[in-house]
């Protein structure tokens, strides 16, 4: 039933497309230059290796010879770690560090000593 509905929908869409005619529009999205994309990916990889999940909050931009680290970490130490990790895989690039320490009271409660252990 779902497939049939979808097929009818797709037929309608395609018919509409045929009736509407087709023309080329200017593309809006700039493709990342391959070398820059490669360097960006390498830096991302290094950040993940160094910081783990914390790397998710760090944005990497590579433009020509300039690397920019933007985003958030939860301590000053991690800014230094991120800088070292990025520098290690992008030698010859200028590194601009815009990372901010995200102030937070959300310190983990673990480990908690009072947990009992299941006897089963």
């Amino acid at each position, binding site marked *: 039933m779902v497939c049939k509905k979808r097929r009818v929908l797709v037929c309608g869409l395609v018919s509409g497309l045929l009736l509407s005619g087709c023309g080329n529009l200017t593309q809006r999205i700039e493709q990342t230059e391959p070398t820059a994309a490669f360097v960006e990916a390498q830096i*991302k990889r290094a950040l993940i290796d160094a910081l783990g999940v914390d790397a998710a909050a760090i944005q990497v931009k590579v433009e020509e010879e300039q690397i920019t680290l933007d985003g958030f970490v939860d301590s000053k130490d991690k800014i230094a770690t991120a800088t070292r990790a990025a520098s290690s895989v992008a030698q010859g690039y200028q590194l601009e560090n815009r990372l901010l320490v995200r102030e937070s009271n959300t310190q983990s409660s*673990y480990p908690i000593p009072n947990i009992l252990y299941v006897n089963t």
Partner: protein
Amino acid sequence: MRHIRNTILIILCVVMLPIVIVRFLPEHWVATQVSRLLTDMTGYNVDIDAIGINTLSFHPTVKASQIVVNGSQLEGFLSLAHVLITLDIPASLKGALTVDRIELAEGEVKFLREANGNNTWTGAELPSKDVPSDKFEKIELPTLRSLTVSDVGILVVDEVSGHDVDLDLAADGSVGVTDEQWTAKATGNANGTPVEGILSLAGIQEIVAGSDSLKFNGSLAAGVNNIKLDGGIDDANTLDGLNANISLTLDDWQTLSSVSKIDLPALPATQLATRLTREAPQFLLSNIDMVVGNSSVNGDVRVDLSTTPISVYSNILAAPLDIDQLMQSLYSSEAANPVKNEPIEKQSADEAGNESTNEEDTLLPEEQFALQEVFNIAQGAFDIRADEISIENLPFDAFDISIAMDPDKLDVEFKQVELADGAVKGSMIVVQAGKPTSSNVELQAELELSALNVARILREADLPNDAGGKLGGKLKYWSKGSSVAELAAELDGGMFLLMAGGFIDLNMVEIAGLDLFQAMGDLITPSDEQTAVRCAYLDLHTKKGLSTINNLIIDTVDTVFLAEGRVDLSNETLDIVLEPHPKDVSLLASRTSVSIGGTMANPDFGVGAALPVRAVAIALLSQLATPALALLPLIEIGGGQPAPYCNALGGALSDGL
């Protein structure tokens, strides 16, 4: 000789005269004096019709009749037709006063409370005597060998709680010898449900004297439900030494709910066995073995009732865990017990109109968090593991999570969540800011996704199964606010997701790429043909609620999609551009940008004027066909070259991706 005789006579007179006098005192006069004395001592209005005293025996008796006790607020607390007290003089002469037997017969105890709070059981306040606390003398209770209760009713009619209980109570047995039991049995109706309770105690006198422990065992049947317990206790005041085995068979939770007048979930039939012990100040439920419907739960729970809020530490293992069955039970409970005491207010037409407008403009709830309801429930820690999970639409296989609760903090650690053949790890910490009554919270959340099977997620979520692959990624976010909308508006952080080794339905790719001839052919002769997704990659960063797409890629054999744009969570507006880039040469193929604007509640899809229907087609495809992937537009790197993101990040984002 005469002197000796006279001396004996005098002594006999001194001893016997009071006995004889007491024996022949007028019964009503004695009753009046005793009633007055008890009234002054207890604050209750005691009225005894007659007291007969038989002193001419080594086991003298006191027989009282027609006893009525009234509280200070409502009359009718207690009425008894007969009370018989038998003393053991020889035993009493050896030490403490010994009561051989007390018999209570033919009466009723009424616990009545009116809606205004007035009740039968509250006595008058006694005048304080200003005795220094160190001057109080410990009351020596007489030794009691036997207590018999027969034909005594217990009536509870509480207009405040709605309880309506009518029981017949009978009890008999020894209360003075450790190895003999005193047994009480109550039968009757509690809130319309037949109930029967039996309680046997051994060592009542010993625990009152503090010399030995009390042994108990009992059962309570309410309808088809049954609760049994047996164990012992060393100190009745502190509950030290409490050690009891408890077993429950709850075949009908609704009956239990009606008996207790507490809204309980209509859970499936439940069997529970556990051991309750006291490790002051905590109570410990250990060796919990519970079966709830299709689910089985084992573990330990430690509770400290002396803290505010109460402290709970638990370690629970559930295997199997039928979440569907439990949720269905809870849902049916809510349906059967709709929320009470919520007055329905009439809305004016204007208010209704405004609300309707707001609902259309925004999606994120603006209601303030009810933090006190969360943080005041309990504090402590919960370790919860589950295997063999059954839950519809979600491919959970197992989870192992820890929850830590402080009065102002909730910390959830996802140690291992097995989801869709992959794993999720992470944590979420919520801290109440601006204690004690503020609704503001600070939030930190992080998740690591590893090798999730997208096809399985789509299949089990009843979504079109047109795409698949292994998905990995990492997310980290911070925020603060007092509602979901505020949290979204203050969101900082980012995520990246990577999918590889996947597939996507060829129809979707061709139509999204507007390869119309090929798409038409696929529709005329539909096939299960799928095309490989070489890589799908999303890199999203958020500052102050503004989420910016840094990279969004889906790279398939036929088409590469890419996207850029932003979502402003503070005002819920969208500004996203999607672009399909067909790789194969086709007569009608073209590359068209599709913009998504408007708000999250009312998105606007748009393209150039020449191709309005195409834009709608792609937008609809995004929603209907493969939403997970359609939200991951693709980037084309160097004319079909493998995207470097996939090569570089594949191993880092998730092991085994």
